[in-house]
């Protein structure tokens, strides 16, 4: 990773050689905060629009909320948790299991929808 205007260097550590040393800057952090704020405001606007579930359909609204939530999750994990700044193989070490969790959730919800009846 190179030093751009959005990143800065971290002091080198000698106790564990090879640690990556480039991190996000303050400006980028605030930028991400305003993006998260905008997405949250959008979610509230959608949620509080009267009749939105009737005009757009309940499934569409649910999908939109999910998509916005995943977008927020991406920004938090990438910039606040600095996963974007880490070495790529470490990022994959974290992200691939999380993808599997999402797949598990989707499968479980599909299973529940099919055969289990409750009062």
């Amino acid at each position, binding site marked *: 990773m190179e030093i751009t205007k959005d990143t800065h260097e971290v002091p080198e550590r000698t106790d564990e050689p090879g640690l990556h040393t480039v991190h996000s800057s303050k400006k980028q952090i605030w930028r991400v905060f305003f993006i998260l704020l905008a997405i949250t405001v959008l979610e509230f606007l959608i949620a509080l629009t009267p009749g939105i579930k009737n005009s757009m359909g309940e499934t569409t609204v649910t999908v939109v909320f999910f998509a916005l939530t995943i977008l927020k999750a991406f920004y938090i994990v990438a910039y*606040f948790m600095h996963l974007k700044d880490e070495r790529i193989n470490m990022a994959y070490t974290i992200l691939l299991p999380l993808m599997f969790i999402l797949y598990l*959730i989707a499968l479980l919800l599909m299973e529940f929808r099919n055969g289990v009846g409750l009062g």
Partner: protein
Amino acid sequence: MSAEATSLSTKPSLWSGGRVPLGASYGKLMMWFFLISDAFSFSSLLVVYGFFRSAMAWVNPEEVFQGIPWIIEGGLPLVFVGIMTFILIFSSVTMVLAVEAGHRMDRKGVVNYMLLTILGGAMFLGCQALEWTHLIEEGLTLHNNPFALKGDPSKIGPIQFGQLFFGITGFHGFHVLSGVFINSLVCWKAYKGGFEKVGHYEMVEKVGLYWHFVDLVWVFVFTLFYLI
């Protein structure tokens, strides 16, 4: 005879020793692994919620979560949870700023931003306590649901609503509480100069990861309980 002995290469290489392969220290990697395991725990709780929610008629979140407890009753759906979400996201920002100050070895910056983060966490917990107390006073408990079904005001909502609501927000609130506690310990150590001695503020980064995870879970809980 030559005094030269043949020796194995001692140059540090990525997977043969001498370097950190994934670019992250042991502590940071372990914190990430713990967060994955915690993600499994929360995911399973949310899957159970999804199961019950899709299997039976439910209450309308906009009717349940109204106003600001004891200040404004009704007429402001989802406003209070919006305030809570904003507080937690803002505390996440101050946490990242603390980490960034740690990169610059700025002790005062770290302490100040961590104090703000702790304050935000405490405010979130206070709001959650207010929300809980208000709902319990209205009759929502683990054994009772006073709210009507969405679209059928004559029928009472399912008992699982209160159970899942208090269970999941309680589990999350417990994480926030422990996060506030751990942040306080790290803030105190930073204040006393413990990280200056070690030479790096990576501990701030590690508890920062935990705090952001807590915020991330709230983003999901908030969407699934209040918006959908």
